[in-house]
């Protein structure tokens, strides 16, 4: 343990700027940690030590010359391996794209480069952000740093694992039905899916055009807002990008939440699905903490979770199959079993059902917006269960749909997953905080107040003792 693995972006940035730590020393320490521990965690598909050290030396020289670019300057990060970096393979964790070299940077990669971040490597994912955890792919699945016998969540599995393991303080994931927030929940970190269109998807391999979001993953809330400041913004080359003005997502951090109106969508986790008791108790304790901080708690009732989930899944599978049909015709054997089983459902969804799912989507967007008029943010479950064991594929398959994240992909509103502590067996518990469109700063405010009151955002497991 060198201490670098615990550093937040915010703390590292201050130390780098003041010269207390060197980007070169910081990057070397994290690369050494990856070298020591990632053989058991499998967070990375590709580590890029030479490029990282070169970038760190450049950052150090720039900062020493007085050209500090901002809070990510000299700070290491990782990217889910469906995000393009020029000259580097984007494999999507699949044999299908094992030799696919990106010609240009994704917009989010460009922004992180311009901000002076140090890319340490590309992280493992479920195949094409949907098929996993799988042992029949060219790379093994990521393992949960809290207990390597357990699932990380997915599909941004390596990004979640890399953060929990202290390999990086920042990573990007993507989220179509919950794929940033699921690994955040299972790895005890913080994952935000902003408003649809808030972050450019250009250069990110799609899963479902209507539902895909790129999101920041960090250990704590302040860091998440800092990273969102770097990656968010209008991109005219992404047809789904929103022409919203730039926002400082850190602006409300530290502000009192007395009088904040918080709605609890309790029926998602105690009626529509019944959450594991420890998970449910964690959320109820969190609600008590928020009440104790002065929030005004009420209850929100929406349509049943299964209506949100069905519309999300129909749209997701239809669009995913449209993307993969050619390869399924020509080389179905090159997909992993789980990807094949999940995506080919899209071949059998009728056009009328796809259209009806988008009609339901429009209705549920209105429903949520009307319910949110009475509150500032909402709270609900993320996962219904703590992470299951990797050697129990049947159990993992049962738990796959036991989540309340898809409603916020369908409706496009911001949602953050934050830790609510650990289960009796030492595995992370979590909840979601949901906001109104383009009101991410409010979501961060509430999440940060909760985190500061509990200290849950700062925990990482001791890898050296396992």
């Amino acid at each position, binding site marked *: 343990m060198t201490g670098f693995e615990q550093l937040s972006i915010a703390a590292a940035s201050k130390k780098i700027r003041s010269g207390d730590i060197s980007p070169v020393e910081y990057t070397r320490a994290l690369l050494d940690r990856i070298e020591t521990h990632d053989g058991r965690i499998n967070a990375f598909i590709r580590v890029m030590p030479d490029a990282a050290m070169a970038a760190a030396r450049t950052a150090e020289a720039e900062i020493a010359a007085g050209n500090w670019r901002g809070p990510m300057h000299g700070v290491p990060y990782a990217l889910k391996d469906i995000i*393009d970096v020029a000259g580097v393979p*984007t494999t*999507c964790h699949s044999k299908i*794209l094992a030799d*696919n*070299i*990106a*010609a*240009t940077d*994704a917009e989010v990669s460009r922004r992180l480069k311009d901000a002076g971040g140090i890319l340490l490597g590309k992280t493992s994912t479920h195949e094409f952000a949907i098929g996993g955890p799988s042992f029949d792919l060219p790379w093994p699945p990521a393992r949960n740093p809290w207990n390597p016998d357990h699932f990380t969540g997915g599909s941004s599995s390596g990004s979640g694992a890399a953060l929990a393991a202290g390999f990086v303080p920042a990573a990007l994931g993507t989220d179509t039905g919950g794929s940033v927030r699921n690994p955040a929940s299972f790895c005890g970190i913080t994952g935000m899916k902003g408003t649809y269109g808030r972050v450019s998807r*250009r*250069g*990110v*391999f799609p899963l479902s055009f*209507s539902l895909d979001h790129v999101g920041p993953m960090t250990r704590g809330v302040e860091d998440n807002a800092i990273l969102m400041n770097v990656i968010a913004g209008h991109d*005219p*080359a*992404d*047809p789904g990008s929103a022409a919203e003005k730039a926002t400082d997502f850190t602006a409300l951090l530290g502000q009192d939440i007395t009088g904040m109106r918080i709605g609890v969508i309790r029926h998602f986790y105690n009626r529509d699905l019944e959450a594991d008791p420890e998970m449910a108790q964690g959320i109820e304790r969190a609600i008590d903490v928020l009440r104790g901080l002065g929030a005004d708690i009420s209850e929100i009732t929406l*349509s049943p979770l*299964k*209506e949100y*989930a*069905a*519309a999300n*899944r*129909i749209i997701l*599978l239809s669009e995913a199959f449209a993307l993969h049909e050619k390869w*399924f*015709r*020509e*080389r*179905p*054997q090159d997909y992993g079993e789980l990807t*094949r*089983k999940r995506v*080919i*459902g*899209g*071949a*059998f*969804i*009728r056009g009328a*059902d796809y*259209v*009806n*799912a*988008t*009609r*339901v*989507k*429009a*209705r549920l*967007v209105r429903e949520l917006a009307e319910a949110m008029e009475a509150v500032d943010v909402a709270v609900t479950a993320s996962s219904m269960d703590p992470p299951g064991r990797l050697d129990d594929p049947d159990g993992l398959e049962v738990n796959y749909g036991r989540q309340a994240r898809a409603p916020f992909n369908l409706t496009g509103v911001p949602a953050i997953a934050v830790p609510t502590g650990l289960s009796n067996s030492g595995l992370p518990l979590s909840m979601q905080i949901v906001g109104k469109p383009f009101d991410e700063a409010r979501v961060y405010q509430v999440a940060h107040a909760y985190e500061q009151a509990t200290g849950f955002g700062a925990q990482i497991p001791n890898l050296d003792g396992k």
Partner: protein
Amino acid sequence: MSGKHDLDPQGLARAFGLDRLADGYPDDIANAANFAKSLAESLPRDLNAADEPAHVFRADLKKPEQGSAS
């Protein structure tokens, strides 16, 4: 309606040009077809003519830039 697909999923897969899938993974095809049907059955049935799709049409769309694997 039940969760089982009314038509022959293998035949449908072949009609869609997915012969290799139909030949190699018949159980996956059947399960996928049944899952698709059960999803459709989970949608609310009370949509009316005023419930329009969530598509947003913009007449000024430019050709998007392509990623590496597009």
